[in-house]
């Protein structure tokens, strides 16, 4: 053997040995028996353009331990990580969390980032519970370790149209035309494709005059709003994020356009940061979103825990679904009796939680790993608070219609 070959073989063997030892260490850590807390990697966009929402999701993580303990569920050891609102970073952080011993992954608010994490989780064989992400393809890949307790874009759309019709009937008025504005990310384009596919069958009273896609990281949306206003549409139909929702509102005010209604089918318009930053200008928009059933006992417990930790923050989708993802993890860990990834995944697949927060009969997954029983609500911003106006079964207020003129709000 030459010196060069010796060195090459030696290095190769060393590398292989090191990798094997590392894999063994990960496997040993990830197969730890119940008793020790389950290591849960929580991936959220804590910085970047979605930072506000990622940090809001974190509140759902922060208030979970006390409630889970009261429910008699095992303790979770949370390993936080930041996706930086970037798909590639999300993928890398998921790999790193698993390398550091995470036994289950939760996250990541965004469909693009969640898709990347799902690929990693499936490849490594580590269960992944999606808190928020609606793009349908994530649970259409035949994955065995990926579970989503959040409605898909098509479920959100179907409920949004049903709830809109209920509101139009209640107020005796409906827009005849809308302009559809949406972010051009994975979620936004999924919703746009969904609308194109189902609107004709939904029998809505309005037609879409124009569709305007825009960058969720845009710094200025004046052109977009000018273009929307120029269509002469009576109402705005939207799929937004947080920063762009604030920018759009500012432009509506500056360009002196108050549509009959702002109908949002995504985040942004009901977020606390939106309500606080815009004050009275935040009143009126209606969001058609996955929400919570205020009548469920666990909803009251979650509301109380959030009020204690953050007295000035309203309970919202971010807290609810992030909390429920951890609830699913703890419940599965208890039933599995082990942190073995396969046992955990099997336990999650058999989940049947009736005592939950979100609207619908409870948490259970179909063969694809999707909770298909979830229902959405219509909520309206009112005086810095959020009221539920549809469906009737979960409503606690009547809709205020039409949108109050922006120039008469003081």
């Amino acid at each position: 053997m030459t010196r060069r070959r010796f060195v090459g073989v030696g290095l190769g063997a060393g590398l292989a040995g090191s990798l094997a030892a590392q894999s063994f260490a990960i496997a040993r850590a990830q197969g730890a028996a119940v008793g020790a807390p389950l290591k849960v990697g929580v991936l959220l966009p804590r910085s970047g353009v979605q930072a506000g929402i990622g940090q809001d999701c974190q509140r759902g993580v922060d208030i979970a331990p006390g409630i889970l303990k009261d429910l008699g569920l095992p303790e979770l050891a949370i390993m936080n990580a930041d996706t930086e609102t970037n798909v590639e970073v999300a993928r890398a952080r998921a790999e790193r969390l698993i390398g550091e011993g995470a036994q289950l992954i939760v996250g990541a608010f965004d469909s693009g980032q969640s898709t990347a994490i799902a690929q990693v989780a499936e490849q490594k064989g580590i269960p992944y519970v999606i808190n928020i992400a609606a793009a349908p393809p994530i649970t259409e890949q035949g994955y065995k370790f990926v579970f989503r307790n959040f409605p898909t874009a098509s479920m959100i759309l179907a409920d949004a149209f049903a709830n809109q019709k209920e509101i139009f009937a209640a107020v005796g008025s409906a827009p005849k035309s809308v302009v559809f504005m949406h972010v051009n990310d994975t979620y936004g384009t999924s919703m746009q494709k969904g609308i194109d596919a189902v609107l004709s069958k939904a029998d809505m009273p309005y037609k879409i005059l124009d569709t305007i896609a825009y960058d969720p990281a845009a710094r200025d949306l004046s052109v977009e709003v000018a273009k929307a206003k120029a269509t002469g549409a009576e109402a705005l139909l939207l799929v937004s994020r947080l920063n762009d929702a604030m920018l759009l509102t500012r432009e509506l005010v500056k360009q002196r356009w108050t549509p009959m209604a702002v109908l949002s089918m995504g985040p942004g318009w009901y977020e606390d940061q939106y309500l606080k930053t815009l004050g009275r200008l935040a009143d009126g928009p209606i969001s058609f979103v996955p929400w919570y059933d205020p009548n469920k006992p666990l909803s009251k417990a979650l509301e109380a825990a959030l009020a204690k930790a953050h007295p000035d923050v309203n309970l919202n989708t971010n807290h609810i679904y992030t909390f429920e993802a951890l609830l699913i993890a703890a419940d599965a860990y208890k039933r599995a009796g082990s942190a073995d990834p396969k046992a955990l995944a099997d336990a999650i697949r058999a989940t049947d939680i009736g005592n939950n927060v979100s609207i619908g009969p409870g948490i259970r997954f179909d063969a694809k790993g999707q909770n298909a029983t979830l229902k959405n609500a219509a909520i309206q911003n009112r005086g810095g608070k959020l009221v539920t106006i549809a469906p009737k079964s979960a409503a606690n207020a009547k809709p205020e219609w039409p949108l109050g003129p922006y120039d008469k709000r003081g």
Partner: protein
Amino acid sequence: MPAEIYLNVAVSGLLTGLVYGLMALGLSVIFGVVRIVNFAHGEMMTIAMYLAVALFSAYRLDPLAMLVPIAAVLFALGYVMQRGLINPFINRPEHSQFMLLVAAALIMVNALLIAFGPDARGVQTSYAFASYALGPLIVDATKAYAGLAAVTVAAGLFAFFRYTLIGKAIRACADNYAGALVVGLDVKRLYALTFAIGSACVGACGSMMVLLVDVTPPLGPTYTLLAFVIVITGGLGSMAGALLGGVLIGVTEALGGLLFTPSAKSMFTFAILVVVLLFRPQGLLGKRLT
């Protein structure tokens, strides 16, 4: 589409473009004299924006009223940076200068993240939601004030370089480095002053920009790139070119978004850059290098 919409959008693009132009002006001044491209330019503007936000949050001081003090702070930062950090690199290869300024930019972004966190921050002045209606034309009050301030600052800068002794000395350094040394000009000090003036420009621009967009630490690189594109389009080293480039990019982005798709606004910016590089590589108002 009603005709007035084009006018509204073009005016909005023009006002935004003026602010872009002022930002690029600082970069152009620095390159025109010191022959260094400041790759931390956008990050320095972000620092100015955070200063404006901090002063507004703490004392309710209007960013436009704070334009001069913030520009003065950035002037000092630029002077110190040039004397302490950049000066030793003046005669080093361009890749060394590039790496130095990129490193400075990264440090600035991360320092801002540590100091202010990742959340977007903005200021809500009394005129934040105001607009003026002039017949069918609706002008955003914030953009109008920012645009006017940009024109005023740019005019002051032109006057400084044309009529003051220091301005003339700086121009002499830019025109003939050896000649400036021969006649006894303190070139090192003038370089530091030039870098400081370019930084003050970006400081003034930051005070205006915070009225138009919310600031986050990662905003800097986006604006560094934008300033660079504007300066290349207008002509590296040409002050008038920087302003023209800013206006051109602002109006093109706005009208391009209106006529085609708003998602592709930045595509038009880069399309202009490609066209200029192909047919007038020295930039619209730049001098052809011999």
